[in-house]
C-alpha cells in the first residue's frame, strides 16, 4: 500500500469518525467533501508517488466529484458532443486550457501541439491539424476557434534562435516550428532593436496571429466565417506577469468600386 500523505491521513480519520458516529448527518458528508475538494485544489505539488498511483488518485477524484455528481450531463455526453470552442494550445505542461479557463467535459474540442501552431492548408504534409479542424468545423459545427499562445514558449524560443545559433538541428521540432517563420521575420524586421527575450515574447503573440491567418487557408473555415459567423480569437496567457490577453480576428471584403468605360 502506498504511503499516505498528511492529507490522505486526515481524510481517513474523518471517514473513520463518520463510520463511528452514525448520527452525523448529510451536512457533515458535504463538509468533508468540501474539505477534500480544498485539499485537492491546493495539490499543485503532486506527492512523489508512482505513475500508477498518480493516475488512480486522479481518476478516482474525477469519478467521485465530477462524473457521479452530474449523471444527466454525462448521459448526454455519452451520446455526443457539441463543444462551443475549437482550441489550439501549446503542449506545455503549464498551459492546459482546461485548467486556466476552467473547461468542463464537453465544452472544448482541443488540439495541443508544440507552440500552438496552425499550419497552412496542406492535405499531405499537415493532415493531423487539418483533420482536427475538418472534424470540428464540418462534423461538430463548432462556432468559435481560439488559438492560445503563452509566455516562455520553448517552441517559439527554438524558432527564434535556430539556425542562427549554430546549434545542431532537431529533425522533427525544427521542421514543425518553421511554420511560424512569417512571425519571426515580421518581429525581426519591426523590432530589430529589442533584445532577444523581448523579441521572443513578441513572436509568441505574432505567431498566434500567423496561425489565425493560416486558418483562413482552409476553405471550409473561410466558408463558415462568411456564412455562419464562425468566430476566430487569439489569446495570450502570460504566466510570468499574470496577464491574459484576448482579441478577435476579423477580415472583411469591402464593396467593389466600378471604374466606368471610357469611349
Amino acid at each position, binding site marked *: 500500500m502506498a504511503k499516505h500523505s498528511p492529507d490522505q491521513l486526515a481524510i481517513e480519520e474523518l471517514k473513520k469518525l463518520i463510520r463511528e458516529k452514525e448520527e452525523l448527518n448529510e451536512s457533515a458528508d458535504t463538509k468533508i467533501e468540501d474539505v477534500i*475538494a480544498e485539499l485537492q*485544489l491546493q495539490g499543485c505539488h503532486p506527492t512523489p508517488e508512482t*505513475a*500508477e498511483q498518480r493516475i*488512480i488518485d*486522479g*481518476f*478516482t477524484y474525477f*469519478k467521485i466529484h*465530477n462524473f457521479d*455528481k*452530474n449523471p444527466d*450531463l454525462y448521459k448526454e*455526453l*455519452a451520446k455526443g*458532443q457539441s463543444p462551443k470552442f475549437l482550441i489550439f494550445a501549446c*503542449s506545455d*505542461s503549464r*498551459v*492546459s486550457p*482546461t*485548467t486556466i*479557463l*476552467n*473547461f468542463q467535459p464537453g465544452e472544448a*474540442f*482541443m*488540439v*495541443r*501541439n*508544440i507552440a500552438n*501552431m496552425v499550419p497552412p492548408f496542406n*492535405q499531405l504534409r499537415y*493532415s*493531423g491539424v*487539418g*483533420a482536427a479542424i475538418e*472534424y470540428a468545423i464540418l462534423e461538430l459545427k463548432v462556432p468559435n476557434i*481560439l488559438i492560445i499562445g503563452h*509566455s516562455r514558449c520553448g517552441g517559439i524560443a527554438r524558432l527564434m534562435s535556430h539556425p542562427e545559433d549554430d546549434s545542431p538541428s*532537431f529533425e*522533427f*521540432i525544427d*521542421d*514543425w516550428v518553421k511554420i511560424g517563420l512569417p512571425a519571426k521575420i515580421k518581429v525581426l524586421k519591426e523590432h530589430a532593436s529589442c533584445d532577444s527575450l523581448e523579441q521572443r515574447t513578441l513572436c509568441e*503573440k505574432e505567431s*498566434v496571429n500567423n496561425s489565425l491567418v493560416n486558418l483562413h487557408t482552409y476553405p471550409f473555415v473561410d466558408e463558415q466565417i462568411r456564412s455562419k*459567423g464562425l*468566430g476566430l480569437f*487569439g489569446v495570450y496567457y502570460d*504566466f510570468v506577469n499574470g*496577464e*491574459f490577453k*484576448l*482579441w*478577435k480576428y*476579423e*477580415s472583411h471584403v*469591402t464593396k*467593389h468600386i466600378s471604374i466606368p468605360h471610357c469611349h
Partner: protein
Amino acid sequence: MASIALSSDPFASKTLPISSSSYCIQLGTSRISARALITGRIEQTHLRLSTELRRNQGFTLKASMGPPGLTEQLNNSKLDTLAEAEDECDIFNDLKDRFLSFKKNKYMKNPEQFESLAKAQEPKFMVIACADSRVCPSNVLGFQPGETFTIRNIANLVPPFVRGPTETNAALEFAVNTLQVENIFVIGHSCCGGIRALMSMQDDASASFIKNWVVIGKNARIKTEAAASNLSFDEQCSHCEKESINHSLLNLLTYPWIEQKVANGELMIHGGYYNFIDCSFEKWTLDYRGTKVDGNGRIATKNKAFWC
C-alpha cells in the same frame, strides 16, 4: 478588394476601455475592469467544483447582457450587428469569467508554485490524448499545471518514424530528448469519432484530411476485422479503439531514441482507455522484453489495472 484587419491591436497598452473588443486582465493587482466586479457574484459559484453550477452561470451571464425585448425594436441589419456584437461580447465575458475563476481558485492560492513553474517546467509525464471535448486528461485524470506535457490530436494516434515529420513526433522529440519525461501515456476513449472514421473508411478516390490522418491506424483496423468481424459495428469500433492504442505504443518504439530509453529502463510506455459511458479506466504498461516491433508487431503488456 479584401483587407485584413485585427479588431484591436493585441500589443496595445494594458489599460483598455471596457467597451473595446478585447480584454486585458491582470492578476495580482487591483486593475480589474468594472464588469468583473459585477460578475463577482457569479464568481462565488466557481468556488464549488460543480458542473451544474457551471452551467447555470451561462444563463446568468445571458440575463445580464441587457434589458429583454431590446433587440426586437431594431431593424434587420442592426439586429444582425447587435447579435454579432452580443455573441462576441458573450465570448469575451465567458472567457474572462473562466480565467478569473482559475485565478481565484488556483493561481492566487499557490503563488510559490506558479512562480517556480514560470521559470521552468519539469513534467514527469507525456500524455497523448484525443482532441475530443469529453476526454481532457486535466479533467479525467486531474493533472495539475506542470505535470504533463500533452499532445492532443484526432484519435490519439502516434505516427511511425517512417512517416516523417508531423506535429506529434515533434512533440515527442521535445518531451523525450529535452524535457526527459519518464513516462509516456497514450490514452484512448470510448465513442471515438476518429476511430469510427477509420473503421468506416472506403478505398474510394475522395480525399479528406480525416482520411489522410486516421489511415495511420490502418493496422489496428486490419487486426480488429480479423479478430472481431462477428461483432456489431459499434463493438468493432470499441475493439479498434483499444487496438489502436497498442498500435500507437508499437509506433512509439519505431523512434530509435525512444526505443533506446525504454530498453534501458529510463522511459516507460503505458496505454490507457477511458470509457465515459460507464466511467471506467483501464491502464497497462508496455513490456519491452516481450514485445516485437518488426513485421506484424506483437505487443506484450504488464501491470494491467482496471478501475470503475
